[in-house]
């Protein structure tokens, strides 16, 4: 019987490039709220997510972004809540949050793979 495929590791948004973080660190995506959410909904969502992360609730450790799923932690939730507490920044985030999220991992654009063993193969290092 074939073994089930290993679950894909969800990358943290900190691993994304600066440009990609504009989408993967959007507070509305982190809190999984729509841009029209009220202040009360924001507070409730933040508290609920932190409690879920402390309990280890399945699914609480990930959220969907336009670049696919990303890993979520309590610090990220706090960051998102702080960002949305500032109304001027919230308006900007509302605009950026328009781009639809993707629930499945997004494969990076195909780039030629690096030659990881190149230095050793060319005799530049032994370690």
């Amino acid at each position, binding site marked *: 019987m074939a073994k089930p495929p290993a679950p894909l590791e969800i990358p943290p948004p900190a691993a994304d490039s600066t440009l990609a973080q504009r989408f993967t660190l959007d507070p509305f995506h982190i809190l999984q709220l729509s841009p029209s959410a009220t202040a009360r909904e924001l507070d409730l969502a933040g508290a609920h997510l932190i409690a879920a992360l402390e309990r280890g609730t399945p699914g609480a450790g990930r959220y969907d972004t336009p670049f696919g799923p990303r890993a979520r932690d309590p610090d990220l939730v706090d960051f998102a809540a702080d960002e949305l507490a500032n109304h001027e920044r919230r308006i900007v985030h509302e605009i950026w949050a328009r781009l639809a999220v993707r629930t499945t991992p997004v494969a990076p654009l195909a780039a*030629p793979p690096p030659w990881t063993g190149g230095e050793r193969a060319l005799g530049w290092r032994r370690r």
Partner: protein
Amino acid sequence: MTETFVVLGCVALCLGVGVSPLPSITTLAPTGPRARGIRRAEQQFAAAVLMLATCALMSLWLVGKQGEPWWPLACLLLLATPLVHPWLVVKWLLVPLGAVRLATVVARRAGHPWFRDPVGGSVLSGALASLRRRRHDPETARWLRARLAEDQLGGAGIVALGLIAADSGDRDTATKLLGTLDEIEPDICPDIARMIALDWLVADAARRGAWHELVDRVSDDPFPTPTTRFVGMCARRMLAEEIPRRSLVWAWLCAPRRVATAGLLLACLRAPRPIARVLEDDELGALPANEGRDPVTRAMALHAEAAAWPVTVPVPAPMIERLALAWDLAFNDFGLRAEVRERVDALAVKAPGELVVARMQRAVARDIALLLCLAGRDSERISASVGVLRRARELQFDDASAQILAACSTLAKRRRSDAAAAIDVWTEWVTLRRSYVDAVLPLSLSERATLYEMFEEEVRTTAAWLWNARRERGLAHAMCLFLLAEAERVHDRDAAAYYRHNVVVGL
């Protein structure tokens, strides 16, 4: 008879050297680096002739009565050759064994191939041996750097500095140092040092998967080694260029380390054939950026596309132009402005809606400025300078100015410190040089001229300090050469004349 012919040949060589004309002092300064290099080469040549004649005479004396067999001469030559040409021992024995100090000491006596920079060559031999060790030893690295202070710094010394930095894990400094050999005068830079530098840069670029950078480096080099030729062809094939398999296999056969590099060859042979592009870059840039959809969503979709671009591949200029055009349409959209004003009122934000849009525009411009940096040389193709693209260029110019001023300040501080060593000042200079070269790529000529004015005075002072206070004429000459090229590029005639004079004075 063999020995007799060898002795006669040595005598003929000596006579030939004796009657050959000497170079004129009008074209060759007797105390200059070229003359010193020629003297070192002549000394080693004389030692080789003397060794050959001595071996032949000893062979005659020892076994001459037994019919002059050839093998005693061969044995004597085998023993004596490493004494006259110790580089063979360093290259084939001491470097592979990782014997850093012994390799440095023996290479100091080596002569060929380090005539033009003997001290730098010996330290470079030590650095090569250090790279072969299983662990980095900071004490050995300090010892190697201290050896460099024994004489003026030449091309081999700079390569040694770069490899010592690479050995300690500081790849960024290593890349900067090894990439500055173009301005080093050939009289103080042995060819083998240039080859070693290019080999390391190529291996590093391949390790990172920066195949575009690798192709640029190899194509700029007029005399690639078999290794760089093979890896360069692999890089071009990786980038979907039409490289025949036969040529690739032949380059692999001509290069050393065939077993170790077979994996790269197979990966390149398996690489898919180039895909015919549906849209060329120019056609892509000419496409309308709105496509009839919501302009903000369209701009953000293009923004996401650019953000997902692999970091090892330069961002195409048409993609940036198209993104900037889409954002211009989005920011000029009355719908967006009205929507922001409405939200500002609803959330009772003090700042007016126009200011919120302006701040968002600034954030987008900063992202586009970052993309311009990632585009590298391709960014020179972007001629448009309106709307958000213009704002991006302004931001990039501000950042570049701040960066260059900070680097100039660091260079000045380093120079003014009491125990300022030439190698430390040179390391700061290559950092400043790299910042400048990266910063000016996407700038217009007038902006480039402004940046040049900002950093020229500090670099000129540093070059003068190296020349007068440290007698590092080679380094000062290299800096003047860089300043001359830049002065000509920004059409600064006075500065160009000044640096042309300095460069013509030579070393």
